[in-house]
């Protein structure tokens, strides 16, 4: 894995956004060649989305030939509810960029047949040629998407009941009222994300530090589902200093030294399609 440690949340968000931007541009997407991106929700990626929007508004990045697949969506919450993941993606990303609505895929938590909806989602990913880069976050209980502790590490897109840790963490979005928090969600499986050609996990904040420790310094364990990515050929963990608080000093020093030896990644631009310096990939 790569572990990229930035000083703070803003720098981590910027690094991640630049990485995504460069990946898309280097791919040279076009009419018959879409870049497929897996996307998360929550507070962690907000800074990254803001940066991507900025690159788009500067004319450096277009989402015209990008297909997106979100990780999850609540079950039973109306699509236009302010806390639905549809609303999140619209307000924090889609409405600011030029993505084709037909290429923005989010699971429908109000589908009549939920499992069929999940199966159809897997099929759409397959038809799109698989995911080029899946961006995700980590829950305080070490989950990826809504793959709660105990989820199979080879699971596919399915209906999940949320763990109490997750419900508590989400309560802040529902006026602190636990009874208002949805208890079920549709989510991509651990296996679904593992199928992606590249995975980037964003982890910021001290409250995620223990989960990061469990995910990368302990063994692969279905109780901390992000640990599955130890077995993925191409995973990057992007974090801020606070998220490393539970790691061994040795681990942190090793990865920081790796980063020190390289030139900082510039941001590509689709206008110029050129760059200076080498990338640290």
């Amino acid at each position, binding site marked *: 894995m790569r572990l990229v440690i930035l000083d703070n949340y803003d720098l981590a968000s910027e690094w991640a956004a630049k990485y995504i931007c460069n990946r898309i541009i280097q791919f040279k997407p076009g009419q018959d060649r879409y870049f497929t991106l897996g996307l998360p929700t929550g507070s962690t990626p907000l800074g990254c989305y803001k940066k991507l929007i900025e690159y788009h508004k500067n004319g450096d990045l277009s989402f015209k030939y990008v297909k997106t697949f979100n990780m999850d969506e609540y079950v039973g919450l109306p*699509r236009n509810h302010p806390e639905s993941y*549809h609303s999140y993606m*619209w307000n924090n990303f889609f*409405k600011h960029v030029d993505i084709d*609505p037909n290429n923005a895929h989010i699971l429908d938590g109000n589908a009549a047949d939920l499992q069929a909806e999940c199966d159809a989602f897997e099929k759409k990913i397959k038809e799109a040629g698989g995911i080029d880069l899946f961006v995700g976050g980590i829950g305080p209980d070490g989950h990826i998407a809504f793959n709660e502790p105990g989820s199979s590490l080879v699971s596919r897109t399915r209906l999940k009941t949320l763990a109490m840790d997750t419900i508590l963490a989400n309560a802040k979005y529902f006026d602190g009222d636990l009874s208002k928090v949805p208890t079920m969600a549709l989510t991509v499986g651990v296996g679904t994300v593992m199928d992606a050609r590249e995975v980037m996990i964003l982890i910021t904040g001290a409250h995620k530090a223990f989960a990061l420790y469990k995910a990368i310094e302990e063994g692969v364990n279905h109780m901390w589902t992000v640990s599955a990515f130890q077995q993925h050929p191409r995973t990057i963990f992007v974090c801020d200093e606070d998220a490393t608080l539970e790691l061994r000093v040795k681990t942190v020093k090793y990865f920081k030294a790796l980063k020190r030896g390289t030139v900082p990644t510039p941001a590509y631009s689709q206008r110029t399609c050129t760059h200076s310096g080498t990338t640290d990939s």
Partner: protein
Amino acid sequence: MRDGRGTVRAPVLQFTNCRILRGRRLLREDLWVREGHIVDPEKLFFEERLVADQQRDCGGCILAPGFIDVQINGGFGVDFSQATEDVSSGVALVAQRILSHGVTSFCPTLVTSPPEIYHKVLPQIPVKSGGPHGAGVLGVHLEGPFISREKRGAHPEAHLRSYEANAFHDVLATYGSLDNVRIVTLAPELGRSHEVIQALTARGICVSLGHSVANLRVAEEAVQSGATFITHLFNAMLPFHHRDPGIVGLLTSDRLPPGRHIFYGMISDGMHTNPAALRIAHRAHPQGMVLVTDAVPALGLGNGRHTLGQQEVEVDGLTAYVAGTKTLSGSIAPMDVCVRHFLQATGCSVESALEAASLHPAQLLGLEKHKGTLDFGADADFVMLDDSLHVRATYISGELVWQAEEARQ
């Protein structure tokens, strides 16, 4: 715009780089319009999988719901109370000219007149949608003749009437048809007002209290019978008294039907009401404030002397005098001037000032789902304003109907 099946689809317009008045706040949001209505872009994106067909950059301007003037007696030389041969041309002229003031809907107002005038004029002022031709006509506001002699103001004494004898039948006989009528101003102390107010309200007509010497109790009973508006608060009514606040007391009355509050019109031209009085009313009851122009035919005429009907009027800036005197001859401040003056005099928020000229009159007339708002589903009647609330452009049903000179480059 052709969709996948080859059928022509109505274009979607996206107004960008603007702040819109929505949910009582100015938000940095785009305004999306389709087929003359304001649409929800999130719904378009996820359900119909559509993006905008055209984008319009608003240059950082404010987009507010179009202003609604529920009391305007004429303008540009036109007098709605005059029975000319071609009343509708006069209404159309005013409707077109007030677009530049940001008004997208209005109630042509008739002052106290003899029955012949009502019978002749009313059928010629139908309710009409707005458009490039002019602001929409929501219905006529009949101010009089059932008003107080003592508080008639400039209304002709000879034509004042009462409905003591036959209540609502007298009303019908006086006005003729009520088809095009939206608001009636009357004095609730007149005998049998209770029945008349109930009958008018039952027909969906808004009853307003004005030109009256009613005390608070009589005013409250009128509201309980169905009255919902006060015509030009403070003018032509008993002054506020601490032991009997009169009609003014309705602003803070605790005897109104539950869930209802009173709306009140104010002419905020810096002349007809002292700013301190404007502030007292606004602070006492901000939700009820409705800005009106109560404009007279001299509105929009340049400085100098003009002959209007039987009157000689001298216009000097924002003031109209009876020629050769210092007597005020009605208001001639356009609606956008009233809004700016209101903002400056009360120190209220921009949102508050804009709502007083749009949302509140719409609520008064029960139109708030379609007018006076930029909520999804509402008619796309709106004004583009700069930060000092000068009108840059006016839109009706999503179509540009007026634009300031500089903006045309």
